[in-house]
């Protein structure tokens, strides 16, 4: 089998298995405004570097997506808060769980750095080790970063206005 055929086959496999995850990653962060360009660029990079794509391709691809989105934001000079856009675009027909609004507001209060690792794990479904790969840091660093971010998110939830907090959380708040 020629090298080109092998590379094509590998790329097709990576694409089939991860298209949805990359698409979702971009939608969650950029909103549906222009996700296609970013998704296309991620897979173009994957094709060009197909020899470097590891067996567990998803963290690698999300790491590329992260840089692609960062580049796009820089290029467009957009300063809009990442999360503000995600929330604005979050409208969907099904009723939201009652907890959602406050946790998203809490998410706005933590740093971008904290948000990044929290979302990779809570939304994109990566393990801590995979998130480390996507972020280009060591597993130990990711672990520390994740636990700190989770703690700060919990604090931010607790600090929200009591009327916004669903009953069980408010109870917890009052006992503090």
């Amino acid at each position, binding site marked *: 089998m020629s090298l080109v055929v092998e590379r094509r086959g590998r790329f097709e496999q990576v694409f089939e298995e991860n298209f949805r995850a990359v698409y979702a990653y971009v939608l969650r962060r950029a909103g549906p405004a222009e996700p296609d360009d970013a998704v296309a*660029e991620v897979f*173009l990079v994957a094709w060009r570097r197909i020899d470097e794509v590891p067996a567990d391709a998803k963290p690698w691809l999300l790491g590329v997506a992260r840089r692609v989105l960062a580049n796009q934001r820089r290029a467009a000079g957009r300063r809009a808060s990442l999360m503000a856009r995600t929330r604005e675009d979050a409208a969907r027909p099904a009723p939201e769980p009652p907890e959602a609004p406050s946790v998203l507001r809490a998410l706005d209060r933590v740093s971008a750095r904290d948000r990044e690792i929290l979302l990779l794990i809570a939304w994109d479904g990566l393990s801590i080790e995979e998130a480390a790969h996507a972020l280009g840091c060591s597993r130990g660093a990711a672990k520390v970063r994740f636990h700190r971010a989770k703690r700060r998110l919990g604090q931010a939830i607790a600090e929200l206005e009591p009327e916004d907090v669903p009953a069980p959380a408010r109870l917890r708040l009052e006992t503090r």
Partner: protein
Amino acid sequence: MSDSLALLAAADPVREAELPGAAAPQARALKERILRADVVVAQPSRRRPTVVAVAVAAAVAAAVMVPRSLEREPVAAAAVLERAAVATASATPAPAGRYAYTEATTITPATDTDEPPFTALVPAVQETWIAADGSGRIRTVRGKPYFPSERDRSRWLAHGSPPLGLPPGSITVEPLPVSPDAAALAERDPATLDARELDELLNTPAFLPTDPDRLERLLQEYAKTKDPPAESMMFNQLEDLLTNPYVSAALRSAAYRVLARMNGIDLRGPMRDPMGRPGTAIDFPAGSTGDMRYRLIIDPATGAVLAEETLLGQPNDEVAGAQGTVLAQVVYVRSGWVDSVGSRPAARR
């Protein structure tokens, strides 16, 4: 999962399972477009290990800036590169056959990032036959992989001695054709081109500006679309222009002049290449950390690139070894023009 994380997971605005999958028409169209658009495979002689090395550097990059104190003799470096620019203008042969033939010996790093990470080095001899439209063939004969350090070897053993890269042997590649859109792209302001368009243009040297100012601006825009730092990407792209047989004498001169303007060029002075040929070496910091550097050995009499290397500065998580260990290398053994794939030029350069 803790409370806050469960709340967060429940607030995911995107229902991933309901999104169109890879089989949806738009996704399939995208996949075909990407496979068609690729031009990198057309010139895998430029599958230069530097790309891999940048990935290695990026993986370990805490944002440590490279000290720019490397500018030991910027004026001298600029003078050497200017001489190369003048020399190459008259010494670059025009195409004289259907295929550009190149023979090179290469060392390519293969990094496994699974814990604990290690790097193996894979030597090879590569012959390429490339036509102006990007079609042709690459023949690679791989040698026996080796390790830059005992640590890398023992980690490889700890992984259960997995196979390293492709098995040794000869591989024939049918490259893909170069995109036809470059002429239109060349007319546009580089700042208005997106990443894909810049890639297409950069892979079509016939349409690149031969004015150093314009070339520099185009390369700066191109580098912005790649992994930082931009200087590394510019340096890589200039290396590509200096070693691509379809780059005209005028464009090669311009590439040398853009190189001469870059901050961080470190003139190493006279140096023999791995084949023992006399040349002049310049170094450039690689990636965003100081743990690797690129080296270019040129023949100042002709402006020809004799060899390119990526050298280890400081050992990092993914590769160990002594300072100066060669992690990646391309030695240009000979080149020339032939009329058919498989034939070799009679006279050695």
